[in-house]
């Protein structure tokens, strides 16, 4: 590793530290969700090692819990993780065109909200070693956090498990509420989404719709309607990506 790569790798480790702490805590609560869905610690740790996606994994565990079918799982992942497509597009502009296939395959492996965020904070082009540094910190935090969430979830008292179950939702709120404060459209979308989610969850008419399908159906309908009626300006889409 040359000196430049080493400097970038160390910088990646440093920026990855707070991500690791956050991931370990949230991964732990995800582990509790995995445990509730019937996964073993190894299966949950493996899922986190391979997926690195809180919302996607939570939805995936719901599909597993309800034994919903592999195609439903594929569609669910496609829709819930669709935002990574946009981030990956932006990232492709942040790495040198000379970057080889292997670094691209590794950077693509760990496109998450937080890691994407720190990468977009780097001025100019990203040295792949920077991303490797961040991944070195974040990935073990996430997968081991999930693993121990399942393990500890079995020995922790019920009231502690109940409390930790909301950690994941707390994290989701921390992602969606700040943009909702800045944009009335997003604020309205969040309210409408929660309201319709409640309607589909509790109204007997929709009792046949599983939790997983509820997420897919509402996401497609509401996001498409929002895109149709409130198309974002080019710059706004970019700033979201960053």
């Amino acid at each position: 590793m040359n000196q430049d790569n080493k400097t970038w790798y160390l910088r990646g480790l440093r920026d990855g530290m707070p991500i690791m702490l956050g991931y370990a805590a949230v991964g732990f609560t995800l582990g509790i969700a995995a445990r509730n869905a019937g996964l073993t610690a190894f299966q949950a740790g493996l899922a986190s090692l391979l997926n690195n996606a809180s919302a996607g994994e939570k939805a995936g565990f719901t599909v597993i819990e309800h034994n919903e079918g592999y195609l439903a799982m594929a569609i669910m992942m496609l829709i819930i993780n669709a935002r990574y497509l946009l981030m990956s597009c932006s990232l492709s502009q942040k790495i040198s065109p000379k970057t080889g296939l292997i670094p691209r395959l590794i950077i693509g492996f760990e496109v998450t909200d937080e890691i994407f965020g720190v990468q977009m904070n780097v001025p100019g082009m990203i040295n792949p070693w920077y991303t490797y540094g961040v991944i070195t910190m974040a990935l073990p935090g996430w997968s081991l956090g999930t693993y121990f969430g399942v393990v500890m979830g079995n020995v922790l008292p019920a009231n502690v498990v109940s409390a930790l179950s909301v950690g994941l939702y707390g994290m989701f709120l921390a992602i969606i509420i700040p943009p909702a404060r800045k944009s009335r459209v997003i604020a309205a979308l969040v309210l409408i989404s929660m309201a319709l989610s409640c309607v589909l969850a509790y109204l007997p008419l929709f009792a046949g719709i599983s939790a997983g399908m509820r997420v897919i159906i509402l996401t497609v309908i509401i996001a498409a309607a929002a895109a149709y009626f409130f198309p974002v300006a080019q710059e706004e889409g970019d700033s979201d990506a960053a």
Partner: protein
Amino acid sequence: MQRNIYVYIFVMFAVTYLIRVLPLTLIRKPIRNRFIRSFLYYVPYVTLAVMTFPDIVQATNSPAAGFLALVCGVALAWSGKSLFTVAVISCAVVFVSEMILL
């Protein structure tokens, strides 16, 4: 029919990885279509909101505690607290309120 959890995990991985890696390896230009850009822009907010409610009140032993965590979580996130802080305090709210409620 009982399905295999490892196949589920593989499907999760395969689809998610393709989504993440294909643009990075194939597409070198940003998406121009305004509708698709806008759709992708709104997706995370809708998805996360739908997954949060009413699920948060079903996840806890006492639905009221879950609802209280939702209100506190929204307030904390609104005031710009970090992901970590919001997650931890939401848990604390449930823990304390269930001690009182149950």
